[in-house]
């Protein structure tokens, strides 16, 4: 539950873009499934950060939306691709992966060949798209 810090990263990026002269109409924050960010806690944090950004530094954006992206994995050894629906992460390891998604390589394998040499193709964690 360090969603505040993740929201802070988004707010700092928006701040830098606006201060560099970019007119930011809309911010889309994509939450990748693997990191399992708590959307509500994140939303409240980002709202607070953006409002203080407006109040204290006069930096404002049109608005933001939060979307979700399914996780997709691809094995470098056998080429298999799969999702968390097909092969979940055990409960006890989710917190480590929540803080550092790459920790998934210590706890999770390709369901087809068992290798830990795979790519997180999609849905790793927080991404920001700006319009």
């Amino acid at each position, binding site marked *: *539950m*360090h969603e*505040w*810090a*993740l929201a*802070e*990263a*988004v707010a*700092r*990026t928006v*701040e*830098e873009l606006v201060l560099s002269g970019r007119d930011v109409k809309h911010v889309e924050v994509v939450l990748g499934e693997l990191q399992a960010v708590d959307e509500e806690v994140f939303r409240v944090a980002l709202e607070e950060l953006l409002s203080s950004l407006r109040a204290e530094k006069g930096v404002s954006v049109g608005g933001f939306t939060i979307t979700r992206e399914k996780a997709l994995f691809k094995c*470098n050894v056998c080429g298999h691709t799969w999702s968390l629906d097909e092969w979940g992460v055990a409960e006890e390891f989710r917190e*480590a992966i929540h*803080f*550092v*998604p*790459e*920790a998934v*390589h*210590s*706890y999770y394998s390709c369901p087809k060949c068992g290798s*830990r*040499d795979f*790519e*997180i193709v999609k849905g*790793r*964690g*927080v*991404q*920001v798209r700006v319009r």
Partner: protein
Amino acid sequence: MELDFRAPLIRERLSSIKLVVPVASPKGGVGKTTIASALSVLLARSGVKTGVLDLDFTNPTTHIMLGVDTASAMPEEEKGVLPVRVEENLELMGLAFYTRDRPLPLRGHSVVDALREVLAITRWSSTVLVVDSPPGLSDALLEMLRLARGSRVLVVSACDKLSLVSTKRILEFLEHEGVAVLGVVANMCKDCRGLEEALGVKPLDCVPRFEQL
């Protein structure tokens, strides 16, 4: 590197640190972890607020050298992540708290992503950050130097032929990059003159081999 939404926050996190000291050598086993740990304890005990980052993500061992048990100590979560308190003035952050003794096989781009994530969420309360680097001149060291260009690198070198050529390489590399070097610590050497001749540089110190270490 494409724009990464974590970059501005990483800059802010690192800006609170006065000096970043990567302890590095492309050669393995010359004493990076030992010297980084000893240096950080010395700094802490002389009153300097010191942080240690274990950058050897695929084989973290700094916590063992600092006597921190990753099973009982976890970084606290408070508007981010707080490094683990080792002793007064000394805090440690690394992936071992998340992966423990398990293997963490990572391709280079994953090392970069993990490093950016750690540097974005970690809230240091230190003035000096000692970075225990993995061997090699690859993603971990390159990305750390990219994110903290004002780093001052402490190069650790043993005195055998393999180490000397390795030390010459990283000194040349750091010169090309325009990254500052604190100097070379000669470690486990019977006699440091060989190193001086080979490198044309006087070691900052000549740490002997301690039998019982």
